[in-house]
């Protein structure tokens, strides 16, 4: 699932197209069509779930729930429209409902793992600095409000256009631009501060500084 930086992974078109034979066959109860449907859309759905939750097990749980739900409501899917925006929207909602439930438990473990990874990655200066920036960005992404987080995942990770991202997030293009702008602004604000702080310092000290 490795994706070169800068290259979008959202290769499945979101724009309306020809009547989707796959959806029509699936609506008639064809399980082979459902399997093809799963193989077509599982990658972007799983990527979104993993990017939000950062937990492979939780992401797979969301993936399963999302496709089970898609099969159960298949009658309501519109064959004239790509099901991907709907799938992504369901995935995002499921992720945030689960993340909010598990956040309190997962946070201490996540921070522990992050510190261990940083310590193990200590190498020549440049690598360490790059690693530091990425860690700062990861923490910055985690700290973003869900709507801004969703915006950067759709736009910068999946490479959807502004219009496609807006459709998935169920907002207009201007709102999507605004969310991206504020997300980048928040990330920028974190970078200069955190880069001055030693990586090994405890999280509480970092916040105080």
């Amino acid at each position, binding site marked *: 699932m490795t*994706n070169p930086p800068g290259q979008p992974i959202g290769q499945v078109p979101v724009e309306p197209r020809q009547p989707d034979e796959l959806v029509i066959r699936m609506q008639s109860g064809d399980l082979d069509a459902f399997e093809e449907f799963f193989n077509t859309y599982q990658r972007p759905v799983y990527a979104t779930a993993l990017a939000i939750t950062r937990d492979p097990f939780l992401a797979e749980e969301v993936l399963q729930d999302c496709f089970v739900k898609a099969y159960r409501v298949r009658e309501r899917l519109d064959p004239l429209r790509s099901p991907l925006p709907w799938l992504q929207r369901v995935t995002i909602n499921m992720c945030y409902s689960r993340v909010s439930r598990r956040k309190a438990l997962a946070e201490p473990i996540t921070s522990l793992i992050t510190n261990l990874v940083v310590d193990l990655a200590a190498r020549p200066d440049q690598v360490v600095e790059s690693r530091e920036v990425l860690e700062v960005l990861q923490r910055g*992404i985690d700290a973003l409000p869900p709507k801004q987080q969703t915006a*950067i995942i759709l736009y910068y990770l999946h490479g959807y256009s502004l219009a496609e991202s807006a459709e998935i997030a169920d907002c207009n293009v201007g709102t999507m*631009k605004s969310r991206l702008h504020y997300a980048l602004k928040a990330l920028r604000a974190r970078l200069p501060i955190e880069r001055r702080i030693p990586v090994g310092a405890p999280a509480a000290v970092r916040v105080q500084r």
Partner: protein
Amino acid sequence: MSCKRVCRELLWLARFGELGVDSQPHLEHLTSCRSCRDEVGFDRAMVAQLRQALADRIADVAPSPEAWATILARASAPEPRSIGRVLAWSAALGGRLRITAIAATGLALLLALNTEIVPMTVPAADDAGGWEAFSVSTRQVPRQASARSPNADTEPLAASDAGTVTGVTAMFQPPSRTGGAAEPGVTIEEPVVNEIRIVFPAVDVFETAWFDESDVDTEDPPAEPPAPVNGEPS
């Protein structure tokens, strides 16, 4: 246009790939302003690192091979809709019942704390003014006269009683041996009547005029508002 504003607009345009012919002034400014170049350059570098950070999140991880089998099994199974809905409905109903029970208990407690039972002696039932005598006997229990009731028969209390205790008084007449009204000439021995008084703190009695239908004229239309005087705001 200030440098700060140009920089802000440049960042916006560059982020969303909207630099075009209209952006010429911004680009000219960019060539001459090192600070703005640094800002835009930093922003672009940060976006590249952001893409890398996001890609790292999903690197080398894929759904397990069993994912499809699990999905198929779950999708083929009947939807546990009814059980889930019944449970959710029961939980909601239980919550409402709890609230209702608490409210009812509170109300019952309030009534119980403000209620006293007074044994009373009741006059003979064959007395022509039985109810009157019965009512008079309640004078021993001070209570406030109702200012609203026009029925003098139910107003046996003296004005001096008013204001001492305010409340609702319910009196239970002794049961008749024949099951109906008290029989003339029959004396009930040791009749005991319970009076239940619900006592509230004394409040001011409002003199409310008794509703009189003759005061309401339903045929005439409502009076129109007076015409505004010239120059006066309406």
